[in-house]
C-alpha cells in the first residue's frame, strides 16, 4: 500500500478534477447567480488560504497523512476521535457527490430508471478503480481532465451565437454581506473539500513540489469554473438561477445552424467522469484513513464494504433536491468551515504549542 507514488503533475490534475467534481453541475451560492463568476475569484482566494494552512500542517509533519498527524498532535485517543470526524466528512462528501449525480441522471436522461440500477454499477466501478490503487486513478484521470478542460474551452466557441452581453448585467448589485456569504459557500464547497488531499500528499514523489502543485490545480479549477459560470450567465440570463442544474441547461441551448444541437449529453458524460474521480478519491481516502485508524497493513479489503456504505448513505443523504439546495445554502458553509478551516487550524495550533522535534523539512 505504501509503495504507490504519484507525481506532482498528477496531483495537480487530481486537484482539478476533485474541485470541479460536482460543483460543475450543481453550483453553490446560486442566489448570487449573475455575480457568481466574479465571486468565484474571491472564493478562490479564501480557498487558497485554507489550503495554505493545511499545507503548513503537512510541512510541519512531512510524509505523514492527516490521521497520523492527529495521533502525533492529540495523542492516540483524541487523535482517533478527530480522525473519525474526518472519516464522516469524507463519507458525506462522497455520498453527497454521488447523490447529486444520480439526481442529475434521474431528472435528465434516465427518468424512469430506479436509483439502484444507477448506483450499483457506479459503486462497482468506483470500487474496482480504488482496488487498482491511487496510481491508476491518477493516470486515468489525466486524459479525463484534459478532455474536460478541452470541452470547457471549446464551449466558448459553441455558445458565441447565443451569448448575449446584456445578460451579464447588472453586475455588483449585491449587498456586501451576500457577497461574503456566497463566497464563503463556494470557498468551502468546491475548494475547501481539498482538505481530503492531506491524506494523499505523502504519496507524492517530490514532497517539496506539493504546495505549488495543489495551488496550480486549485487556481486552474477556479478559472475553469468561473469561465463556465460566465458562459452560463451569458447564455441563460436572469432565469438561470431558477434551474437546479444550470450548466446542463446552458449546453441544451447550443444551436449552431440547426446541425449542432442537443449537445447536453456530451458535457454530461464528461462531467460524470469528474464525479467518478471525486467519489473514487473519497472512497480511497476513507479506506486509507480506516486502515490507519485501526493500524492495518492492507487497504485492499476495505474498498468493498466502504463502497457499500457510500451506496447506502447516498440513498439517505437527501429526500429531494430542494432540501439539498437548502442544505447547501444554510448549513454547508458552517459544516465546511468546521472541517476545512477550524479543525486543521486547531491541529496546526496544537502542533506549534507542542513544539517538539518535527521541525526537519523534507527537502
Amino acid at each position, binding site marked *: 500500500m505504501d509503495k504507490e507514488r504519484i507525481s506532482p503533475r498528477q496531483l495537480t490534475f487530481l486537484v482539478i478534477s476533485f474541485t470541479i467534481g460536482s460543483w460543475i453541475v450543481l453550483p453553490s451560492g446560486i442566489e448570487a447567480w449573475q455575480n457568481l463568476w466574479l465571486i468565484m475569484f474571491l472564493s478562490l482566494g479564501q480557498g487558497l488560504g485554507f489550503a495554505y494552512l493545511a499545507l503548513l500542517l503537512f510541512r510541519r509533519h512531512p510524509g505523514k497523512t492527516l490521521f497520523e498527524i492527529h495521533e502525533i498532535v492529540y495523542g492516540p485517543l483524541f487523535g482517533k476521535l478527530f480522525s473519525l470526524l474526518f472519516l464522516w466528512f469524507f463519507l458525506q462528501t462522497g455520498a453527497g457527490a454521488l447523490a447529486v449525480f444520480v439526481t442529475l441522471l434521474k431528472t435528465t436522461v434516465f427518468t424512469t430508471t430506479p436509483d439502484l440500477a444507477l448506483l450499483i454499477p457506479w459503486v462497482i466501478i468506483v470500487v474496482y478503480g480504488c482496488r487498482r490503487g491511487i496510481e491508476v486513478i491518477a493516470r486515468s484521470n489525466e486524459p479525463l481532465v484534459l478532455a474536460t478542460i478541452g470541452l470547457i474551452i471549446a464551449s466558448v466557441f459553441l455558445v458565441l451565437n447565443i451569448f448575449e452581453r446584456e445578460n451579464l448585467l447588472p453586475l455588483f448589485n449585491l449587498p456586501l454581506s451576500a457577497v461574503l456569504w456566497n463566497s464563503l459557500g463556494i470557498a468551502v464547497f468546491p475548494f475547501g473539500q481539498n482538505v481530503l488531499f492531506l491524506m494523499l500528499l505523502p504519496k507524492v514523489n517530490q514532497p517539496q513540489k506539493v504546495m505549488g502543485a495543489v495551488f496550480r490545480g486549485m487556481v486552474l479549477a477556479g478559472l475553469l469554473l468561473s469561465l463556465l459560470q460566465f458562459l452560463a450567465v451569458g447564455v441563460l440570463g436572469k432565469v438561470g438561477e431558477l434551474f437546479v442544474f444550470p450548466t446542463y441547461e446552458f449546453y441544451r441551448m447550443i444551436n449552431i445552424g440547426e446541425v449542432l444541437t442537443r449537445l447536453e449529453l456530451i458535457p454530461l458524460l464528461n462531467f460524470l467522469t469528474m464525479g467518478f474521480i471525486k467519489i473514487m478519491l473519497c472512497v480511497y481516502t476513507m479506506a486509507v484513513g480506516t486502515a490507519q485508524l485501526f493500524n492495518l497493513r492492507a487497504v485492499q*479489503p476495505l474498498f468493498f*464494504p466502504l463502497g457499500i456504505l457510500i451506496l447506502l448513505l447516498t440513498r439517505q443523504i437527501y429526500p429531494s433536491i430542494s432540501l439539498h439546495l437548502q*442544505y447547501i445554502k444554510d448549513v454547508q458553509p458552517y459544516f465546511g468551515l468546521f472541517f476545512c478551516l477550524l479543525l486543521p487550524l486547531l491541529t496546526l495550533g496544537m502542533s506549534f504549542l507542542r513544539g517538539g522535534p518535527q521541525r526537519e523539512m523534507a527537502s
Partner: protein
Amino acid sequence: MIILIVLVFLGLFLYEAPGLVAEEYWRELAVFTLLLLLGLFLSILLASGVELPYVESVWLDLFTGLKKGL
C-alpha cells in the same frame, strides 16, 4: 429481497476473506467483517422499509435549532 442481500454480502465475504486468512491479516479481517456487517444491517433495515433519517435533514434541523437557541 432480504435473502438476496444476505447472499450478496455472503458472496463478498467469501470473495475477500480466504485471501486475508491465508496471509494471516487478522486485524484486516476483523475490520472488514465489522464494516460488512454494518452495511448488511443498514441494507436489511432499508430493504424492510424502515424509515431512516436523511443525513442532510438531520443537519438542517440541528442548525435551525441552534440558530433559534442563540
